[in-house]
């Protein structure tokens, strides 16, 4: 008989949002040949949108994902701005949307760091899983757990004040927004924002110190050179809400820059692989083999020339100093980058709260109707693409979405492969390997499905299968 490969399946991955499954493929010699992360994706949704009126889409698409509905809401609204012929919103509309978005980034990054990641950083990858979870953090570092909860709440309340609801709001409409922020709504945020910034700085400190203290280990932990893609402002600044596309290689050379995302499909293509529902995007001119890239906090901090808020910019400079101005390609540096963005989002929120434009009443603009439009936004997890065609009856005829986790598909597979190669010995899954696979995936903060997620409470089942599909080892942990 031919030489088979053994399959090790880790399912579900705990403490990432949603749930997924990891298969580690061994070659005939029992060495890791490849690791695959299986993700449930939502292609069916793109068909469901067809025939719906375009103004419904920003609300409808939030059903895609219970984890970052606001990102889908805003990306779709940005696309629909184009459909109604609007390239520039009123100042009030743009700032309300930005506030909503920074609120979303703030709550998402805070949740991820405090609830999902801090147990790994504070206790170490090999700590007992019974301790290495958010309850463990709450017991040992009660003030941190409280901060996480308060910061998340702060971000969610901003979403509620701008979108109308914490989840599935309606605030962004084609060409603008449906409400401003009254002084009465604003004031509670103004009162709390300085405290939030104090906590942002502390969280950044934890992430930075951790990375620097474990640099030797992390440099070799699921890390690899890669391209990076992000939106940047025309002046090169980081901009989480709007900008042009920039791609850099692992050395920081620009592959393309200041690309108007309306034509993203001329620069980025998607590859289908038989074993995954998810597509694998790549930079067209480099091809699928070398054109894959990372998105999200690491890519954004790497790709931008500067950050336009002072504290986050100072933090970015420290981050860049470590790699002498070149991109940082360490997978675990995502956490540090994410906390730089958390601080940036906090600074932006403070700036916006002090802006009287938020109380403006000019909310919606209209232009000449178009048939096709693209909306991009830097969602907490990375660049999110929404692309629609709308017919003369106002019905959607085509929708193509590329979500952040899809962009990071190849990188996550590589990270897991790297970790597996380093830590798997024999055909048995050790606790140490299991933990490290999870930790590597978690760095990307993937939203693995729209399934409900129980934070850190998911049982972890591990299966080891031989080439006939027979389970030769099974383990349940967590």
């Amino acid at each position, binding site marked *: 008989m031919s030489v088979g490969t053994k399959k090790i399946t880790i399912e579900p991955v705990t403490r990432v949002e949603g749930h997924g499954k990891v298969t580690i493929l061994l070659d005939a010699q029992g060495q890791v040949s490849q690791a695959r992360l299986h993700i449930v994706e939502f292609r069916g949704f793109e068909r469901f949108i067809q025939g719906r*009126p375009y103004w419904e889409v920003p*609300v409808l698409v939030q059903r895609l994902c219970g984890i970052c509905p606001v990102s889908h809401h805003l990306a779709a609204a940005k696309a629909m701005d184009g459909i109604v012929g609007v390239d520039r919103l009123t100042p009030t509309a743009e700032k309300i949307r930005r506030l909503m978005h920074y609120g979303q980034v703030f709550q998402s990054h805070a949740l991820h760091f405090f609830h999902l990641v801090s147990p790994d950083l504070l206790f170490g990858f090999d700590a007992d899983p019974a301790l290495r979870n958010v309850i463990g953090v709450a017991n040992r570092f009660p003030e941190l757990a409280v901060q996480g909860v308060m910061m998340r709440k702060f971000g969610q309340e901003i979403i509620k004040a701008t979108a109308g609801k914490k989840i599935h709001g*309606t605030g962004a409409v084609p060409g603008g927004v449906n409400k401003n922020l009254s002084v009465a709504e604003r004031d509670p945020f103004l009162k709390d924002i300085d405290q939030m910034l104090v906590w942002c700085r502390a969280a950044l400190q934890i992430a930075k110190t951790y990375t620097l203290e474990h640099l030797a280990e992390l440099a070799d932990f699921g890390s690899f050179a890669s391209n990076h893609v992000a939106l940047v402002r025309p002046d090169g600044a980081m901009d989480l809400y709007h900008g042009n596309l920039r791609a850099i290689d692992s050395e920081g050379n620009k592959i393309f820059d200041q690309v108007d995302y309306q034509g993203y499909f001329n620069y980025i293509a998607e590859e289908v692989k038989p074993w995954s529902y998810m597509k694998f995007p790549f930079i067209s001119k480099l091809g699928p083999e070398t054109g894959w890239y990372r998105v999200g906090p690491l890519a954004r901090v790497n790709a931008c020339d500067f950050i336009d808020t002072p504290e986050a910019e100072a933090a970015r400079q420290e981050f860049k100093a470590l790699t002498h101005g070149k991109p940082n390609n360490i997978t675990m540096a995502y956490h540090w980058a994410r906390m730089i963005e958390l601080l940036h989002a906090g600074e932006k929120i403070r700036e916006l709260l002090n802006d009287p434009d938020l109380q403006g009443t000019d909310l919606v603009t209209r232009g000449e109707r178009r048939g096709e439009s693209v909306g991009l936004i830097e969602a907490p997890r990375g660049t999110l693409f929404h692309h629609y065609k709308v017919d003369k009856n106002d019905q959607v005829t085509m929708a193509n979405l590329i979500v952040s986790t899809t962009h990071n598909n190849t990188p996550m597979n590589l990270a897991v492969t790297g970790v597996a190669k380093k830590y798997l010995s024999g055909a048995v899954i050790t606790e140490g390997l299991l933990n490290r696979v999870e930790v590597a995936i978690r760095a990307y903060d993937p939203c693995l499905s729209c399934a409900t997620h129980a934070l850190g409470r998911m049982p972890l089942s591990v299966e080891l299968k031989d080439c006939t599909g027979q389970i030769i080892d099974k383990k349940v942990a967590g």
Partner: protein
Amino acid sequence: MNKSIHLTIDGKPVEAKHGQTIMQAADAAGIYIPRLCSHPDLRPIGSCRVCTVIVDGRPQAACVKPAMDGMVIENDTPELLQHRRNIIDMMFVEGNHFCMFCEKSGNCELQAMAYRFGITAPQYPFQFPEKAVDASHPDIMLDHNRCIMCARCVRASQELDGKNVFQAIGRGFHRKIGVDGEKALADTDMAVGDRSADVCPVGCIIKKRIGFRTAIGRRLYDRQPIGSDIEANATP
């Protein structure tokens, strides 16, 4: 003949005028009888049966039944509540109602009724019927997924607009609102200013391009439950 009419609703004495229906008399007295097909500007047809009350022991549709002297009427009873809930439930499962992304949300009478009756999830299985969307008209869209066959549009077109844009066609499960038979809305003389464009209790007849313009919190039933405008007329 001019002698006024005295009746009771749930034990409360109510005075009615000649020619009034039970529903009109109740409205004037500040007693809310739930309803869906009835509309103040349209001839009542008694089709949805949400307004069923017990008159001297027998079920009657309050929107069509004339008020008569001496009637003893029950409206707010557990049995009637259950009956109304069942009807509302059926309406939800017989259509495709996704309130979370429906632009009528917050202004929808069916949804507001469900809230008033404390319905969070229907007791019947969803049928997920195949329904069409007619977006052919430049200013108005018909989303049959949300139609509850109340025939308000049919009556409004005939009685108020002097047109005949809408008709109920088909039988049983396949019953639906047609426009001039099997045509598309764009082929009719419907105009966005027609009253028939305003009377739909749900998100079936939609004026295009204005959805979601009203922020959550400022929509009609965000501020007050359905029926509370009528109940505000109540005398202690």
